[in-house]
């Protein structure tokens, strides 16, 4: 289980007419071989930008790296030229996008879109290309590949299109697949199918997956490790069990409180997190979540909390962990569960 991706102190900003938007502000994480890492957070927390930084898909300019390093198998990604980057994209790191409806070229046949990754690199002849495409279509669970090969995206259903997107991401046999909210625009039954497919493929091919989502249910189902992002920072990270049953950041706890589970009573109200995320044009000096946090102390508004190591893989960025802070028992999934059972 070697590290294949190491992100250190990554900061990425966008230059806009309104000023500089600090989308990602110092993010560190690793991805090990064959592991599924989840990144969870609400819209605008920087999770998609972080993911796109890894293959440099953010438009540069207006976006630019302020700081940090991304090491893929020991090579630095941030300083790569466009030409070097093209050798990484698709064959080393694959990408699955959020909306399969708009992410496929409407005027190009499915088969051609899958093959293109090799056509660009002059890798196989025509017959081999088609074999490759049909093989991958079969792998992602599209049974009548021969027919689908010659179809256009509009002739496929949403779930089918997402399978094609997965096929495109997988066909270059990458070591890492970044799935940016792969099921957000699909309905729940299809969502379950697609997630199962991703997990099966991950086991079969031993690929690492970085799964970006705002759905903690997806995280629970899929991931080994979880990074919780807020305001361009990772506020809590840990194994799935740490996050769900030993929650240490008020934001994570808020996220957990706002999802319904099987134990939720009929007339029980879900608890939303009040307020809005911080303005990333001028992010607050202190903890980004302080303004919405019910446990916020004075220090929270003034200084950025350090990252507290709670266990081997579990850290959190919250002043509540400081020795002077009073001990607060955050509601977490297990507690909710126990309450219901009593």
């Amino acid at each position, binding site marked *: 289980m070697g590290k294949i991706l190491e992100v250190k102190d990554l900061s990425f900003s966008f230059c806009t007419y309104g000023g500089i938007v600090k989308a990602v502000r110092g993010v560190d994480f690793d991805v090990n071989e064959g592991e599924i890492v989840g990144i969870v957070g609400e819209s605008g927390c920087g999770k998609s930008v972080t993911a796109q930084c890894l293959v440099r898909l953010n438009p540069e300019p207006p976006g630019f790296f302020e700081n940090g390093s991304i090491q893929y198998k020991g090579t630095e990604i941030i300083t790569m030229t466009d030409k070097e980057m093209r*050798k990484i994209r698709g064959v080393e790191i694959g*990408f699955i*996008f959020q909306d399969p409806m708009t*992410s496929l070229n409407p*005027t190009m046949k499915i088969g051609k879109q899958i093959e*293109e*990754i090799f056509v*660009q690199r002059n890798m196989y002849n025509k017959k081999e290309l088609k074999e490759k495409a049909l093989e991958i279509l079969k792998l992602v669970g599209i049974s009548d590949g021969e027919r689908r090969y010659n179809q256009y995206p509009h002739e496929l259903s949403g779930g089918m299109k997402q399978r094609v997107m997965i096929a495109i991401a997988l066909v270059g046999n990458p070591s890492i697949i970044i799935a940016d909210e792969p099921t957000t625009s699909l309905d729940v039954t299809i969502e379950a199918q697609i997630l199962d497919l991703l997990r099966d493929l991950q086991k079969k091919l031993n690929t690492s997956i970085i799964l970006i989502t705002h759905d903690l249910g997806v995280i629970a189902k899929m991931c080994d490790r979880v990074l919780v992002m807020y305001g361009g920072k990772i506020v809590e990270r840990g194994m799935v069990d740490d996050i769900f049953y030993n929650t240490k950041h008020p934001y994570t706890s808020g996220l957990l409180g706002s999802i319904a589970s099987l134990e939720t009573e009929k007339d029980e109200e879900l608890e939303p997190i009040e307020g809005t995320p911080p303005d990333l044009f001028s992010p607050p000096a202190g903890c980004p979540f302080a303004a919405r946090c019910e446990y916020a102390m004075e220090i929270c508004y003034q200084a950025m909390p350090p990252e507290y190591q709670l266990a081997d893989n579990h850290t959190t960025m919250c002043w509540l962990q400081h020795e002077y802070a009073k001990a607060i028992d955050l509601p977490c999934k297990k507690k909710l569960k126990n309450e219901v059972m009593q």
Partner: protein
Amino acid sequence: MRKYIFKRVIISFVTIWVLATIVFILVRLMPGDPFSSDKMTPEIKANIESYYGFDKPLIEQYFTYMKNIVKGDFGYSMKYVNQSVNKIIADSFPYSFDLGMRALSLSISLGLVFGIIAALYRGKQLDYVCVIIAIIGTSVPDFIIGAMLQYFFGIKWGLFPVAQYQGIKHTILPSIALGFYTMAMVSRLMRASMLEVVQQDYIKTAKSKGISKFRITYKHQIRNAIMPVVTVLGPTVASVLTGTFVIESIYAIPGMGKYYVQSVQNLDYSLILGMTIFYGAFLVLANMIVDILYGVIDPRIRVSGR
């Protein structure tokens, strides 16, 4: 697809029939008649009118005319003595068609190239050059451009003949003058469309596959961006072909424009009708080809047409 084309052909014939009927009525509603003149005595006038069948009831004339059109006979001109409308069209249309096609192919190809370049170099000098050309093209009328070209290229620098239509060299200035507006419009449309397509998700998908910029542009961007341009091609063909009237008179080209304008002034009923129906049929055909072409480029249209 075959059914779709068949349907389109039927609709086209109906369109032309409606056009012929309306023009037939409108022409007769105009005050005056082709033979009024100070020297004309009532006897001679009655004689001529009976020769052309004007003494019969209008409805009978209409049916006779329709019958003749179906046979492809537009009748004789009422002003150009002993010239059939068919012959006038056959003599003059090749010039107009040649000029129109040259102007169209020039303007569409250059317009697309300028539009693509402007979009690829957005915000840079090359973009501004293309945008300025486009602004000039859309805001300056073609007869001014025609006259300017004559003055600079024809008289001042002596590079091209000022007028007439006798060889390749003669065709260049009128083609540019005629196609300038269309070129400007196509380039503006293509630029906007390219910039819109580049923000689409599938361009990002292509990028994530490690496809080169060049390949993304020509395989993904252009094919999708060209759609709105194809949509306006039908009306564009119309505007270029009607635009020939002005350009033909500036460059003294013996095309249809002269006959068309004069036929209206002369109240030359058969020539007006013949020319209008001919033009109408031509435009209907052009639109039909564009619609079929649209289906070829965009697979989504193809399905609905089946």
